[in-house]
């Protein structure tokens, strides 16, 4: 990908968006958490959501695979599409949606099962493997893509919760890609990790970009600048600015964006 900020890449302009959101509003009970957000997410790119704490970036992320459904009293208005299908339409199957739009959480959350079973969990519930050999293949390929295979290939039977934090998070990424999703949502995936583990995950995100549309929420602006091609700045539940990462960080249009990036608040 083009890392040169001077040259404006045509991201999101000439490729078909993988997910589109139009006029999305989210309410928690009486409280409105998201106001009129419209955004496009493109395949083979990393899109970063940045903004101060409580700006709604995580809330919006959770709308993209309908994880807000599991929160009592949450209500989503507006239209969000995956490959031009409305994901909030009655015809849309949540199970299928979440298999296509995977998610990695802030804190590593491996299941209290073996490493193998953690990765095999998704393919198993979705019935993606016909035989044991198929499953072994899927697990191996997911662990390889997550860059974890060499570290764990000899101890696949050990508990997933016994690994280090960085390994756990990569296991969660492997678990997410084992069902071969089209989009991967990452909710501050490095906030619980040390710098070395963070660097490893960032590398991994860059490698995965070739295959998936990745959306990452982060409060770390350097991280957004390092890993993403497009950046959206959220503030108080609204989308303030959305542009190429290079543009956002060098030449923001909005003063609010500029103030945030230069550390005036946050």
């Amino acid at each position, binding site marked *: 990908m083009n890392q040169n900020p001077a040259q404006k890449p045509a991201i999101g302009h000439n490729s078909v968006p993988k997910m589109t959101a139009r006029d999305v509003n989210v309410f928690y009970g009486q409280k409105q958490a998201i106001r009129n957000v419209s955004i496009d997410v493109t395949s083979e790119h990393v899109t970063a959501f940045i903004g101060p704490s409580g700006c709604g970036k995580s809330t919006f992320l959770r709308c993209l695979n309908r994880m807000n459904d599991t929160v009592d009293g949450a209500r989503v208005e507006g239209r969000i599409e995956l490959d031009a299908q409305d994901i909030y339409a009655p015809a849309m*199957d949540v*199970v*299928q949606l979440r*298999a*296509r739009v995977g998610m990695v959480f802030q804190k590593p959350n491996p299941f209290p099962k073996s490493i193998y079973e953690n990765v095999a969990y998704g393919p198993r*519930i*979705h*019935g*993606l493997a016909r035989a044991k050999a198929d499953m072994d*293949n*899927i697990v*191996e*390929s997911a662990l*390889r*893509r997550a860059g974890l295979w060499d570290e764990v290939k000899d101890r696949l039977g050990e508990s997933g919760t016994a690994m280090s934090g960085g390994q756990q998070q990569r296991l969660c990424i492997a678990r997410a890609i084992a*069902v*071969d999703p*089209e989009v991967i949502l990452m909710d501050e995936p490095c906030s619980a990790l040390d710098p070395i583990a963070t660097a490893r995950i960032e590398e991994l995100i860059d*490698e995965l970009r*070739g295959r998936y549309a990745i959306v990452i929420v982060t409060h770390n602006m350097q991280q957004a600048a390092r890993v993403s091609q497009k950046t959206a700045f959220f503030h108080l539940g609204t989308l303030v600015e959305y542009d190429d990462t290079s543009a956002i960080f060098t030449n923001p249009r909005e003063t609010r964006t500029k103030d945030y990036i230069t550390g005036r608040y946050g």
Partner: protein
Amino acid sequence: MSAIERRPTDWASPAMQARIAARYRAERNFRRLGATALVVAAGFLAFLLFTIVRDGWSGFLRTEARLEVTFTPATLGVDPAAVAGPDGKAMLARADYVALLNEAARGLGPASGTLSDAAWLALRERLLADPGLLGQRVSLWVPVRSTIDLLAKGKFDLEAPADSRGVSDREVAAWRWLEREGRLRTGFNSAFLGNADSTEPELAGIGGAALGSLFTLFITIIIAFPLGVLSAVWLEEFAPRGRLADVIELSINNLAAVPSIIFGLLGLAFFLNIAGLPRSSPLVGGITLALMIMPVIVIAARVAIKAVPPSIRDAALGIGASPIQVVFQHVLPLALPGIMTGTIIGIARALGETAPLLLIGMRAFVTDVPQGLSAPATVLPMQVFLWSDDVQRGFVEKTSAAILVLLVILIAMNSLAIYLRNRFERRW
């Protein structure tokens, strides 16, 4: 990136669609199973309440028969001339009302044997209230025997053959006669709430047991509440980390789960046989139950004390309060709602408890309201147990009615506890 290539999943394929449909079916079934479990559990409660209300509501009613009585001085064995004298009242109180009742009952013809053994009390009451009635003929309402009472309430299946329906033809005939003559009425059974136990269902009441419960709980509360709160304070605020605190904590946690009957064995072996405290008394019952519910109060109080944030303690300590002052002036008042909730739940448990009291003799047949904390007494759940064992049919509705009273009190207490918990629950 060396990854084994996979074809993207074809979500639209019929096989995959069928699989998803099957998963959703499993989901619905599982959900239904959960709802069913809840409905079964709640339904059981509803069924239990239903049968008890169905059997028990009539226990609050009793049937009375109209009786014409002539207060004949000769039958009563009193001298009409002396009635106006100084001992007149006492003489009237001692008069032979049973003979008078027997004489009057003859007027009921076929139903002469239907009156309660205690019906003479109604006669005495009437005459004592108005001594001028001596020699007069009056008509008054007196209680009937339990069988007639049950017949009037429709508790017998009269279609059934005579030998299995539990009531004789003579009794049915007597009841029919009373009905025809319009001599029966059903009214509120004040005897049930006021009287103590009796061998006659129509005379038995829960008054004695209720007072016994009150006495017992009084002892329980004055022992368990201070002990429970004080030991919770010690464990939470002052206990030095070490063996003693561990042992106390272990003791309390285990006592909370020890079967209640074991406390009865303790009461029997220690309070009755070694300390020689009076058997069957609210005193011993209260102490035994106090030891039983103390762990409940300690555990609830510790949770409530722990929930008071350290910042409050720091603030008070910071302006020079001593640790004891901090606890009694700041922490305990803030923890009080939680402590009260736990205490009420503990007391409700003590009120419903029967097993340990069986062993310390509180199943005594007590026909009088208890006279004091060391006199023999019985308690409400024990009365339920005793009546449930009685073969007389009239006690079935009494048992259910006593359960109703007990449940109403317990539900009120538990609701109060839940209300307190919700009303005063503070989020720090």
